[in-house]
C-alpha cells in the first residue's frame, strides 16, 4: 500500500517534470537556457543539471553507493543533451519504481549525506527526490519568469488526482 502511494506520487512527479520541459523550457530560445540570472543555480542549464545530479545521486544511494558520481562529464551541455540526460535518469527511476514494494519502502539504506554516514529508510531518500524536484520546478519557473515572462503552470496534485479518478 505504501509502495502504491510512492508509485502514484512518482507518476505525478514525472508528468509535471515532462510538462515543464515540453511547455516551459523547450519553447524558449536556446540562448536563454544558458543565461545566468544570478539566483540559486543561475541558469536553466545549471538548475536542470543540478536536479539531474540529485536524481542520479539518490538513485546511487538507493543502490548502496557511498561514492556518488556526477551525471555529466562535460562542462557546458546544450539543452538537448541536458534533456537527454534527464530522460535517461528518469528512466532509471522508472525501472526502480515499477518494481517497488512495501518491503523496499522500509528497507534501511546506509549512505553519505552532507559528509556524514547515515542510515535511513528508502522512503526518505525517495521522498527527498520528490520534494527536491518540486522545489526546483518552482525555481525553474521563477528563472523563466525572469528571462522571458511568467508562466501559468498548474501543478495542483489535487487536480491531478481528480482527473485520474474521472
Amino acid at each position, binding site marked *: 500500500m505504501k509502495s502504491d502511494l510512492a508509485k502514484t506520487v512518482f*507518476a505525478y512527479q514525472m508528468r509535471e517534470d515532462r510538462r515543464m520541459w515540453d511547455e516551459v523550457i523547450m519553447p524558449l530560445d536556446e540562448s536563454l537556457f544558458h543565461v545566468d540570472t544570478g539566483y540559486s543555480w543561475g541558469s536553466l542549464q545549471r538548475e536542470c543539471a543540478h536536479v539531474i545530479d540529485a536524481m542520479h545521486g539518490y538513485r546511487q544511494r538507493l543502490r548502496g553507493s557511498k561514492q556518488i558520481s556526477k551525471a555529466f562529464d562535460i562542462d557546458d551541455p546544450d539543452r538537448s543533451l541536458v534533456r537527454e540526460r534527464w530522460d535517461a535518469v528518469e528512466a532509471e527511476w522508472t525501472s526502480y519504481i515499477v518494481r517497488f514494494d512495501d518491503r523496499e519502502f522500509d528497507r534501511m539504506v546506509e549512505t553519505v549525506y552532507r559528509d556524514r554516514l547515515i542510515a535511513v529508510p528508502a522512503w526518505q531518500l525517495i521522498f527527498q527526490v520528490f520534494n527536491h524536484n518540486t522545489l*526546483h520546478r518552482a525555481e525553474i519557473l521563477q528563472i523563466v519568469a525572469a528571462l522571458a515572462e511568467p508562466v501559468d503552470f498548474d501543478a495542483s496534485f489535487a487536480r491531478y*488526482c481528480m482527473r485520474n479518478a474521472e
Partner: protein
Amino acid sequence: MEEFTLNTESGAFNVDFARKLIQFNVWENQRVWDLAIAPLTEEQFLREVAFLRGSVQSECQRIIDTESVYLQRILGTSPINGESVEDRVDRAAIAAQWSSLRRSWTEFAEELDGGLFVSTCEVETDGGRQTMEVWQLIFHVLYQGTSRRSRILRLVAEVNQPAEFDLSLLQHLTGLLRG
C-alpha cells in the same frame, strides 16, 4: 509510466512516514518564517515583485488558505469549497494565523492513523462535488507548501537578500542542517 491507484483494501498500516512528512511541512514553514520573513521590513513584506506576480505577503496568504481549507475538508468542518478567507495584509495577523495552523496540523499528524489516511471526503470543484481520499489532500498541501516556500525565498531575495539556508526534506529528517 502507468497511472497507479492506491490499494486501500489492505487494512491498517503504519502511517509514520506521512506523519513525518506533515511535521516536515510544519517545521519548514516555521523555519522560512523565522529566518527569511521575520527580518523583512513591512515594506519589503508587502512589496509586489512584478515578474513573480506576487509578494511575500500574498504567498504567505496562499499557503495559509490552502492549509486551512484542506485541513477543514479533511476534518469535515467545511468549507468543502476552496473559498479564501478574507485578505490579510497585517504581518502580525498572518503570523498568528499561521502559528495556529501549524499547531492544528501538528495535532492532526499526531492523531493520523491508517484508517483516516485512506478515508474519503467531499470536495467542491468547478465540475461539481468530488470524492477524494485524505492522503491525496495531505500530499496536495505538502506539494504546494514546497512550491510556495521556494517562491517565498525568491521573493525575499528580490526585496532583501538571498536566504542563507536551504530547503530540504532530508535535512529535517536527519537533523543535518545547513544554515
